[in-house]
């Protein structure tokens, strides 16, 4: 799905989290929102997911205005920074949550839900952990379960907030490839937020460098490396 962000701004009280920013994300792209903390990257992601509403500007999905679309109607698969798995539910129930939440008319049968959950657990390479609780999983496993839960709703796009932030270096590298693979298999337009420039450069097709609520540069990783558009981008990349 093609995502268009048109002059979006966000004001929290008197502070501006986002100055009007515009960005066009081609269908099927894997995009990194890269910037230090407070750069507005998470706010932008949450606006895409429908968890925050912009103060001004429009969001368009495939050319259709989606600015006023509720969080439920956006069908954005969202992976939270600390994964936000439902701690009182098993892995199976976590992944099945979105399917069970559908209105009765469009809800798959129990058997169909079980089949899909099993398939998703295979996709994240954790077959057979359906009966466990989130508290019994490692950080990397939790992240993959969160990804499966987001994919279960057959989302129109995948949004990830610092998906590798809470993991150690080795697991981080493995899961990076995992996300790339899942993106390539599903073909979903994917946006992830990170403060780690190496991660952004290695994983993304398109990198959006942000600072202080503004977009500093948009481009392919190699282009941004070769030709930083502003002093901020140059400093951030060499830091």
């Amino acid at each position, binding site marked *: 799905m093609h995502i268009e962000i048109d002059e979006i701004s966000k004001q929290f009280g008197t502070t501006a989290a986002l100055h009007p920013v515009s960005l066009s994300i081609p269908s099927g792209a894997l995009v990194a929102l890269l910037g230090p903390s407070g750069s507005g990257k998470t706010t932008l992601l949450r606006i895409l*997911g*429908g*968890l925050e509403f912009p103060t001004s500007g429009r969001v368009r999905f495939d050319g259709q205005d989606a600015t006023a679309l509720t*969080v*439920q109607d*956006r*069908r*954005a*698969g*969202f992976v*939270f*920074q*600390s994964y*936000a*798995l*439902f*701690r*009182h539910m098993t892995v199976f129930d976590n992944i099945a*949550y*979105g399917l069970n*939440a*559908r209105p009765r008319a469009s809800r798959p049968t129990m058997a169909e839900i079980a089949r899909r959950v099993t398939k998703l657990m295979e996709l994240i390479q954790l077959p057979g952990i359906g009966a466990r*609780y*989130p*508290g*019994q999983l490692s950080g990397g496993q939790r992240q993959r379960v969160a990804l499966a*839960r*987001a994919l*279960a*709703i057959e989302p129109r796009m995948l949004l990830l907030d610092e998906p590798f932030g809470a993991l150690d270096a080795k697991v981080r590298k493995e899961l990076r490839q995992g996300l790339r693979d899942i993106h390539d298999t599903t073909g979903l337009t994917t946006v992830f937020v990170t403060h780690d420039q190496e991660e952004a450069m290695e994983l993304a097709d398109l990198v959006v460098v942000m600072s202080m609520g503004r977009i500093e540069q948009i481009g392919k990783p190699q282009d941004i490396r070769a030709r930083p558009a502003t002093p901020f981008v140059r400093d951030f990349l060499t830091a």
Partner: protein
Amino acid sequence: MSDAATRCFRPATGEPPAARRALIGLAFAGLAVLVFAPLAAVFAEALADGLGPSLKSLASPDARAAVRLTLTIAAISVPLNAVFGIAAAWFITKFDFRAKAFLITLIDLPFSVSPVVAGLCIVLMFGTDSLVGGWLVAQGRPVVFALPGIVLATMFVTFPFVARELIPVMIEQGRAEEEAALTLGASGWRTFRTVTLPNIRWALLYGVLLCNARAMGEFGAVSVVSGKIRGQTATMPTTIEMLYQEYLPVAAFSLAAVLALLALATLLLKTALELRHADQLAAAHRH
């Protein structure tokens, strides 16, 4: 040698056996003096003349009316306070707004205001001399010296219990799980039912039990608004006091023993639930 060895393997946070015994002994002594001894005294006094007179006093219409009234009050005010408490805790923890600190202070108000003052406030607001009270009395629905007033007084006094238990738990849990449920397509009500409520159920249960214990035991505010009409508006605590004042120790302590048993039953219920759901509790805490 063996003594040195045991000392070596003692965990860093452990205490020497002597200190441990002393601490445990101190805790038990405190409990014995403050909790067990008075409780035993109540039962001893109640059964001073044997079981017969005690049961006979409990079977009197006034005593039975008092038990019924107290249970009715708890049955009305505890569920309402559970709902209000959840609503208040939800509002305070899931939204950001300017008057938040003020609202939290307001929730604590019943703890800091004397129950007698609270009772007087209700009398002032709903008494026959007041505008609202006068009108209600004219409609044949008096608040003061009647059930509505007693329920109001009880609810005021027990309001903070549920909210106070829930707020820290809900703050600690944050909003991420609810947000996740919403992005997965769940409605607000479904999110509350399947995510929020299961996450707070133990705190909620604890708050409800405390609220219940206090609702049944409330004396100050209720004695002001109830008028203590025997057989009609006298609750268990107020009846106990009246009986005691009338030099009827067996009747007073028998009713007191029933009140204590009701509280003990609440605690047993809580323990039973905790034992039965021990695995879920552990799972919830590990995350």
